[in-house]
């Protein structure tokens, strides 16, 4: 069954700041969409909004998945419907083992609970594929994990939960070169064997040479300003975003830093320096 994700005129606010300003996007099964753009322009906001993070307030627009109104669904319902977000900063859950967490998550989406034997077999296979430590299943979720281990654990969860929409938010950051190869190979393998679509946020063309996007989008100031395919990713890697600013006559917001006066090691009798 083919899946369709449709986002229309999406406006999103975070803490009263307008981040997404009328973003539209359509993606279907069998596609990998690279989401690029300078920092702070709305890439992660887009993924978090699709997943339903309560901190992100949708003021206008719609998101539908196979015709269902995603914005009316709770976060857990979105997940069970097939949405998955591999987070940039995965949460630690001390006291809850990966094994208990994943079994509960799998059972939440199936009428019949997964047998212990099938679960162990599957998690062991995936742990090996991702070259993770054998005791991972018995460790607490992300507790005491290195940055790289957390990112691999996100992919492990993806492989176990088998989503239809895989959203990967800078999954390559914090991974060394070998780990990036391993993770991208696991993602590619999952993509090849499953009827899914992927939305991938990354700053690095290198990552996109491994998972080969079919579509690319550049988000600047909360809107998609350029679209293309893998060639667009390559161009951005070579030339940055300046050519886009010029071509589209965009004036990026420059962060105004407050003027700092130093009082030196002792303010007494020194007054303010200019």
């Amino acid at each position, binding site marked *: 069954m083919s899946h369709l994700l449709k986002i229309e005129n999406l406006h999103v606010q975070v803490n009263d700041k307008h981040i997404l300003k009328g973003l539209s996007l359509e993606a279907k099964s069998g596609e990998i969409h690279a989401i690029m753009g300078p920092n702070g322009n709305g890439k992660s906001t887009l993924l978090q909004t699709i997943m339903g*993070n309560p901190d992100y307030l949708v003021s206008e627009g719609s998101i539908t998945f196979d015709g269902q109104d995603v914005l009316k669904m709770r*976060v857990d319902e979105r997940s069970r419907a097939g949405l998955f977000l591999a987070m940039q900063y995965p949460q630690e*859950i001390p006291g*809850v083992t990966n094994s208990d967490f994943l079994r509960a998550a799998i059972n939440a989406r199936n009428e019949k609970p997964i047998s212990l034997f099938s679960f162990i077999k599957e998690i062991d296979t995936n742990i090996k594929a991702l070259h993770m430590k054998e005791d991972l299943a018995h460790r607490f979720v992300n507790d005491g994990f290195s940055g790289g281990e957390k990112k691999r654990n996100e992919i492990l969860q993806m492989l176990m939960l088998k989503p239809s929409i895989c959203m990967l938010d800078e999954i390559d950051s914090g991974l060394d070169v070998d780990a990036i190869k391993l993770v991208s190979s696991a993602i590619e393998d999952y993509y090849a064997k499953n009827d899914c679509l992927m939305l991938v946020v990354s700053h690095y063309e290198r990552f996109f040479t491994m998972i080969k996007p079919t579509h690319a989008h550049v988000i600047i100031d909360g809107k998609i300003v350029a679209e293309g395919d893998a060639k667009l990713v390559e161009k951005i890697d070579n030339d940055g975003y300046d050519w886009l600013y010029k071509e589209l006559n965009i004036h990026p917001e420059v962060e105004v830093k407050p003027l700092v006066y130093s009082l030196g090691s002792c303010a007494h009798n020194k007054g303010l320096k200019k």
Partner: protein
Amino acid sequence: MSDLLRLNDDKPLMIDGSLSHDLLLILSGKKAHIRYNLNAKGPWHIFIFREKTNISLIEEGLISTDSEVHMAYLDLANESFIQESKFAVLKGAGLDIKSIYLGDNNKNIIFDISNKEADTKVNIDNSIVALKDSDFNIKVIGNIVKGAKGAIHHQKSRCLTLGPLKRSLISPILNIDENDVEASHAMTSGTVDEEMLYYMNARGLDRNKALSLMVESYLTYSDELYKDFGIAENWQKEFKDREANLCLM
């Protein structure tokens, strides 16, 4: 397997070295007053379980020279509970206390444990989950008295409060009056982290299931505890059922 003793009246109980080494004490009355004089060298395992009544438990104990005593407290009832446990540990003896308090009513717990002499070891580990409208106070007082050289005293309490009306007060207190000792106290208390909850929701767990998993994480060592204390299978089942009922929110 541990022997079973049910306390369902208010008469004081004296436990000394002549009784069994593995004991399951069921508190069924309104008031329990227990005195211990544990002088056997073999390890003692005393597991105290409160059944469904409002109750106050008063304990006083002497852990004699070179004894090894393991105490466990399991409270899975919603009714209010008052507990005052005072133990003195003598030369070369060790006292290990593990407790699980889970429920939705007021609980006031005081542990007052003294390393009275040299080379004594005390370890206290409390896990508390305050459900619904509970008000939880626990005070853990550790005393390392003058002359208790080489004493070891560690205490740890952690409390999870669920919902807006819950309150927990944990007071870890250490009074150290001797040099050359090893001691620590730690406490954590807090409610559910919304970001953690979002992460669990994003994996398909609804709020109740996510909270249940977090509560269960506070009971992680309960299985091990039942095994270590030789609790009979029918009682283990009873405890697990009660845990599961309380975890269903």
